[in-house]
C-alpha cells in the first residue's frame, strides 16, 4: 500500500478566503459568527451564522461562467485553484488520467434551487433559466473542478450530510493508497444560507440563538457556516521524488454507522469509527495529541462525543487536547470535515492548537481538555478529525506531520 500525503491546500471560509488568512484568524481565536447579512432574516428564528463575507464572484470568474456556477461551486473552484497552485501539479500532461476528483457536499446548489423554486412557485414564472439543472445538481462543483484543471481520471461527489467531506477525503485517501490513482483533488463545499433552508433548521430546534459554545455548560445549539476546503493528496513516493513540499500525511481513515436515529448521535458508533481510524493508521491511542472534534455545540453531540472519546482512548482521553473550531467558523455541513482537517493541518504546522472559542463554563458531563478560548502553543505530531453526521454516519481521519 502506498503512503498518502497532502501537497496542496486551498480554502474559502468565514475566517478568510485563503490559507494564510484563515490560519491567522484561527491562531487569534477570532470567530466569524455574527448577524446573517446575505439574506433577510425577518420571519426566521435564527438570525446568526458564519458567512463568507465580501465574496465577490466577479473577482474570480467571468460573467459567462457565472451562469453555471452556484455559490458552492464558486467556493470550491477558488479553493481548488489555491490547492492546485500550491501543489505545483499540472494535470493536462497525462497526470490527469491518474488523478481522482472526489468532492463532498451535503446538498450542493441549494441557493440556485431555492431561487429557481421561488421563481416558479412564488413568482409564477413560465420558464426558468436553461442552465438551472446543471447548476444546482449536487455534483456540479466537482464537475467544474475537473473541467477547469483538465482532470480526466475518476470523478464523483460524496454525500453523507455533515460527514460528506471526511468521507470524500477518506475515499480519495483509499484510492491513492491502493494505487488506483496517483493524485486526488478532494475536500468539500457547502453554501446553504437561504431563507427556506434556515427555516428548516429552525424547525429542528437545535440552533443556538446567541453563539456557538461547544462543550460549554450553557451551550444552546449549533450555528451554520459555509465555505469550501480542497486539498491535493498524492502518493508519498511520487511527491518526494519531485521534491514537493509535504504538508502532512494522512495515516488513517475510520468509518461506522450508528444505525439508530436520524438525528441523535451514538457514543458507541462514534467510538467505533475512532477506533477503526486508529487501527487503520496503526496508531495506539497514546500517540494521538489532538482531536479536532465534531463539536457542534448541541446538547446531544458534545456530551455524546465526549463519552465516545473516553471509550476510544481510555486513560489517554484526559491527556488529549480536544477542540471544536466550529465555534469560530460555524457548522459548514458537507464542507465541515474539509474545513476542519485543513484547520488541523495548518495549525499544527505552525505549532499551535486552535481553541474552542466562546467557552464560558465547564459542563460536568464534558470533562476533557477543550483548549478554551486561546490557541495553545504545542508540538503535536499526530491528530484526528471527527465528523458525525445526521443519520449516524461517522467518519474519522488521522494525520501525521
Amino acid at each position, binding site marked *: 500500500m502506498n503512503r498518502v500525503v497532502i501537497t496542496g491546500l486551498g480554502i474559502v471560509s468565514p475566517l478568510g478566503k485563503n490559507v494564510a488568512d484563515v490560519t491567522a484568524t484561527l491562531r487569534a481565536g477570532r470567530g466569524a459568527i455574527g448577524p446573517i447579512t446575505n439574506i433577510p432574516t425577518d420571519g426566521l428564528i435564527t438570525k446568526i451564522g458564519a458567512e463568507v463575507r465580501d465574496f465577490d464572484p466577479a473577482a474570480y470568474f467571468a460573467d*459567462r461562467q457565472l*451562469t453555471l456556477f452556484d455559490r458552492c461551486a464558486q467556493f470550491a473552484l477558488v479553493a481548488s485553484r489555491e490547492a492546485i497552485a500550491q501543489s505545483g501539479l499540472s494535470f493536462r500532461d497525462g497526470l490527469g488520467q491518474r488523478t481522482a476528483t472526489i468532492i463532498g457536499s451535503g446538498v450542493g446548489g441549494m441557493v440556485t434551487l431555492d431561487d429557481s423554486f421561488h421563481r416558479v412557485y412564488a413568482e409564477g414564472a*413560465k*420558464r426558468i*433559466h*436553461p*442552465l438551472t439543472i446543471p447548476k444546482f445538481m449536487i455534483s456540479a462543483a466537482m464537475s467544474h473542478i475537473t473541467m477547469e484543471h483538465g482532470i480526466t481520471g475518476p470523478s464523483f461527489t460524496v454525500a453523507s450530510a455533515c460527514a460528506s467531506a471526511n468521507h470524500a477525503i477518506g475515499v480519495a485517501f483509499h484510492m491513492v493508497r491502493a494505487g488506483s490513482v496517483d493524485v486526488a483533488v478532494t475536500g468539500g463545499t457547502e453554501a446553504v444560507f437561504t431563507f427556506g433552508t434556515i427555516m428548516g433548521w429552525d424547525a429542528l430546534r437545535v440552533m443556538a440563538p446567541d453563539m456557538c459554545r461547544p462543550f460549554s455548560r450553557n451551550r444552546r445549539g449549533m450555528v451554520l457556516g459555509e465555505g469550501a476546503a480542497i486539498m491535493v493528496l498524492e502518493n508519498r513516493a511520487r511527491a518526494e521524488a519531485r521534491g514537493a513540499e509535504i504538508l502532512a500525511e494522512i495515516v488513517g481513515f475510520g468509518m461506522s454507522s450508528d444505525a439508530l436515529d436520524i438525528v441523535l448521535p451514538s457514543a458507541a458508533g462514534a467510538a467505533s469509527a475512532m477506533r477503526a481510524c486508529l487501527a487503520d493508521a496503526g496508531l495506539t491511542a497514546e500517540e494521538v495529541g489532538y482531536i479536532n472534534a465534531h463539536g457542534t455545540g448541541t446538547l446531544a453531540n458534545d456530551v455524546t462525543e465526549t463519552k465516545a472519546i473516553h471509550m476510544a482512548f481510555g486513560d489517554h482521553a484526559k491527556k488529549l487536547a480536544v477542540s471544536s473550531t466550529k465555534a469560530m467558523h460555524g457548522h459548514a455541513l458537507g464542507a465541515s470535515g474539509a474545513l476542519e482537517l485543513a484547520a488541523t493541518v495548518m495549525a499544527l504546522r505552525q505549532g499551535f492548537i486552535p481553541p474552542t472559542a466562546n467557552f464560558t463554563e465547564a459542563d460536568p458531563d464534558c470533562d476533557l481538555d477543550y483548549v478554551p478560548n486561546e490557541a495553545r502553543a504545542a508540538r503535536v505530531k499526530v491528530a484526528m478529525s471527527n465528523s458525525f453526521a445526521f443519520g449516524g454516519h461517522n467518519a474519522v481521519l488521522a494525520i501525521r506531520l
Partner: protein
Amino acid sequence: MNIESDIFDIVATQAKVDRDTLKRDTRLSELDLQSIDIIELIFAIEDKFDISVPYNASDLNSAGIAFETVNDLIGAVERLNAEQHAQKAV
C-alpha cells in the same frame, strides 16, 4: 415593441459582439455560439417577448422554424408573437 431592435440586442449580448456588426442576414453559425448558447438565446427571446418557442436541441427545424440567420429569428418571433398573443386576446 420593436422586434427587430430587440432581437439585435439579444443576439449581440449572447454572442458577445458589437450590435453594429450584426445585419439581418448574419448567419448564427458565424457567431461562435455553442449549443448551450443557442438554448440561452432562445430563453432570452422567450423571456423578452413572453412567447413559447418550439425548439428542441435535437431537432434544429422544429415546427418549420429555421434559425440560420438573424432574419430567421426576427421572422419566427413576429409569427409566434402574432399567433400567441392574438390567441390570448380571443
